[in-house]
């Protein structure tokens, strides 16, 4: 603790030596002592700072001088406080409302229709069939003639059973139409893509560093990445005139601006196919991105979780394909994958980190002790993913059904004069409702969102929750709807649209 000694008292002369110096000194020391006790070890991230104050009871700061923290309720950490505050993002508010009043065709026909969760129920019938035919064998396993659960109750490698890694590598390859082969030894399995992204951030960046993220982006990243790692996300804004494709120029600008602020950028996080827009990053852009990353010596995280949900005609090129073809330095590239979207199994919690960097793999493996996949589920998935015939049928059927629903939904919106961006993938469409918002601003957008949620009773995600710089865009997830639901959704939007004209 540095001690700053005020000089005035000494200068004031004899009588003042005690009163003039000791008492100010003593008070000064108390002040520094008090400040030292209350300075948090790390500067809170911008989003947390205001909530820190909101979360602390007012009495405790005063009382701490005399008896450290013994008055007032026991406090949780700054990290905890920022998470504890009520959700203020429309993304989560919409979910909460939906949970309280969910649409059900028979029991609650006036309930809220969920278009804010990228969930795919279109092919669950195929999975149900597979499960009823194969389940008990797949979990219980056969030890000769007897069913046995041995092998799944004991401690497993935290980063996943090797058989599942092998099956997953095969699945990921099938998803890409065998364009690439994946090495199981470069796979780290996690309980969902959510911890996979967080683990990568812990491995690639320190507290206070940043990642560049082309926006609009998946609202969940704000929480998943910033919660505990202290890593900042810097949006790199994309425009509708480019169909929301990102440019290297924009990345470069953002990188330099961050540097001026004294913030170290450690990597770029892309989602390909993109969420919420649904576009696919062209091969050329991927090459340019790698060049940029090499020039700045930073990482590239490619979240390819929608790789199997492609319904358009554009070619999807995985980062893995680029790396297999080229002898570029692979140490900086890491791919995220999972089964929540392409295989509709979000409940089973299955995520993948695929990296070419030995050190990252080593560190990530150790971190999976906090987020391993449950063993019976691993067994089930080994069985399911190895059934390549079933997987082939599933992937093809899934694409067909998504496309059909997409075409129908987008056509419905078109009838209302609502245009959607060009997209070839994902479980959602990206709709331009700027014609309906009262003012061309975030405020106007949120007013429309509120109407859609509370009057039309549909939960869609406003672009501002995705950090979109142009107001009026909304993400509408349609893959948990049936064809019969679509006219109902369009009708409800129409009612609100009419009040906006």
């Amino acid at each position: 603790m540095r001690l700053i000694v005020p000089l005035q008292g000494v200068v004031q002369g004899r009588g003042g030596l005690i009163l003039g110096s000791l008492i100010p000194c003593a008070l000064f020391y108390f002040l520094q002592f008090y400040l030292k006790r209350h300075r948090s070890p790390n500067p809170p991230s911008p989003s947390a700072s205001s909530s820190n104050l909101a979360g602390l009871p007012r009495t405790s700061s005063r009382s701490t001088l005399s008896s450290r923290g013994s008055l007032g309720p026991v406090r949780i950490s700054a990290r905890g406080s920022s998470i504890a505050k009520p959700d203020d993002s429309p993304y989560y508010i919409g979910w909460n409302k939906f949970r309280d009043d969910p649409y059900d065709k028979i029991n609650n026909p006036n309930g809220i229709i969920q278009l804010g969760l990228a969930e795919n129920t279109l092919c669950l019938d195929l999975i149900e069939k597979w499960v009823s035919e194969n389940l008990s064998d797949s979990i219980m396993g056969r030890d000769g003639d007897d069913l046995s659960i041995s092998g799944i109750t004991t401690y497993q490698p935290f980063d996943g059973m090797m058989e599942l890694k092998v099956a997953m590598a095969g699945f990921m390859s099938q998803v890409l139409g065998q364009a690439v082969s994946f090495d199981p030894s470069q796979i780290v399995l996690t309980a969902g893509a959510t911890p996979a992204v967080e683990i990568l951030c812990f491995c690639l960046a320190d507290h206070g560093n940043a990642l560049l993220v082309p926006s609009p982006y998946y609202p969940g990243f704000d929480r998943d990445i910033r919660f505990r790692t202290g890593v900042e996300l810097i949006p790199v804004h994309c425009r509708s005139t480019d169909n929301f494709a990102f440019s290297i120029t924009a990345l470069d600008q953002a990188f330099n601006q961050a540097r001026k602020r004294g913030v170290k950028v450690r990597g770029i996080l892309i989602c390909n196919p993109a969420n919420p827009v649904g576009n696919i990053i062209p091969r050329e852009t991927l090459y340019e991105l790698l060049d940029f990353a090499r020039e700045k010596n930073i990482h590239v995280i490619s979240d390819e979780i929608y790789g199997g949900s492609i319904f358009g005609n554009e070619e999807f090129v995985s980062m893995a394909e680029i790396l297999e073809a080229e002898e570029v330095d692979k140490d900086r590239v890491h791919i995220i994958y999972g089964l929540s979207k392409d295989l509709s199994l979000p409940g089973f919690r299955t995520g993948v980190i695929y990296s070419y960097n030995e050190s990252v793999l080593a560190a990530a493996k150790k971190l999976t002790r906090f987020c391993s996949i449950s063993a019976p589920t691993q067994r089930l998935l080994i069985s399911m993913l190895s059934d390549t015939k079933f997987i082939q049928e599933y992937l093809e059927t899934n694409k067909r059904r998504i496309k059909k629903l997409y075409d129908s939904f987008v056509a419905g919106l078109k009838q209302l004069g609502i245009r959607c961006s060009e997209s070839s993938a994902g479980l959602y469409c990206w709709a331009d409702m700027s014609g309906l918002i009262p003012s061309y601003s975030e405020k106007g957008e949120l007013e429309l969102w509120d109407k859609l949620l509370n009057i039309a009773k549909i939960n869609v995600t406003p672009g501002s929750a995705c950090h979109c710089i142009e107001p009026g865009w909304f993400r509408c997830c349609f893959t948990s709807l049936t064809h019969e639901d679509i006219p109902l959704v369009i009708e409800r939007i129409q009612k609100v649209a009419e009040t906006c004209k």
Partner: protein
Amino acid sequence: MAIEIEQPSVSVGLSKVAVSETHGEDSPYFAGWKAYDENPYEESTNPSGVIQMGLAENQVSFDLLEEYLEQQPEASTWGKGAPGFRENALFQDYHGLKSFRQAMASFMEQIRGGRAKFDLNRIVVTAGATAANELLTFILADPGDALLVPTPYYPGFDRDLRWRTGIKIVPIHCDSSNNFQITPQALEAAYKEAESKDVRVRGVLITNPSNPLGATIQRSVLEELLDFATRKNIHLVSDEIYSGSAFSSSEFVSIAEILEARQYKDSERVHIVYSLSKDLGLPGFRVGTIYSYNDKVVTTARRMSSFTLISSQTQYLLASMLSNKKFTENYIKTNRERLQKRYQMIIEGLRSAGIECLKGNAGLFCWMNLSPLLEEQTREGELALWDSMLHEVKLNISPGSSCHCSEPGFVLNSPCSFNFHAAGMIVVVTVLVHI
């Protein structure tokens, strides 16, 4: 198919977390495991391999689980025609399956002989107690803060509590003079030690029953701990992962019982961690829970549990299993009996070899005093003995120093992961005698 990775001359940097040693895997605790992984003992095919006694894994009651699953196939399937599968496959709500939380709450009540009540809405699900402990730490403490932990403690805490959270562990020193019980003096001393280093203490974390001691914490000590935490206005985390492995239900007192007796006064600082890895022998399932009496902690923990959810399939299976009262009652009772028997067997065997253990009444291990065998009564002496145990005798046990025990010579021995029979036991004992 291996992929050659060219190492560039200027490598792209990694984070401090990635390169830190806090994962702790260079300690003897983990070195022993590696040695076992590379050369595991197997009765018929590899009798000279390393015997694993450094992993607290419960295999004594495995047959009961197998029997249950065979008789109740609906639990693990979703029944013929698979109704309910759809909801299950889509269920990723961080609140956790209600039926599972209900079953978990009632299981925890059963273990405590009905002496404490658990509210299913205070249960947060996590993928294992490892995740639960880390998650709680993230919530209760900021980087640079400290948790007080009584020694000796589970070696994994060094990693689980500190690695990504950035907190410190300040030990509460306990010694053999009073069977390693926590004293008020030791508590105050630890707190003062933290203060002197300008470190803010956010809570005390105890394991009850204790790992590695294999003994339950006495009621009076729990009362003191709660009073201490209240006086200092800090949290109290009670890791009760071995509560179902106390040899007799009446000897285990949970912090929940203390709180109920006090009508939940000051309870918002108390949090309990539980898991099915030890009591139910299901570490592979990755099932842990946080039970908190603090609403804000429950809300925050729930949100943070997105990083560590339990597969809905597993929740579904366990909801069924744990709400089957007949099964759970029988399991808890039988498990306790078998653990006690196994414990007795090894204690007697060790005694006949001249080795004394701490009098234990819980857990899957015993705390042996091997100080008479040390060449010098120091940490180095203990590690030398551990080393020869591992490499010459081929026995993986954990030295007390890896548990931060301040007295050399105490060693953690987990006999319940080993498929013992009498002959095997004799081998172990004669081998120990010959050191």
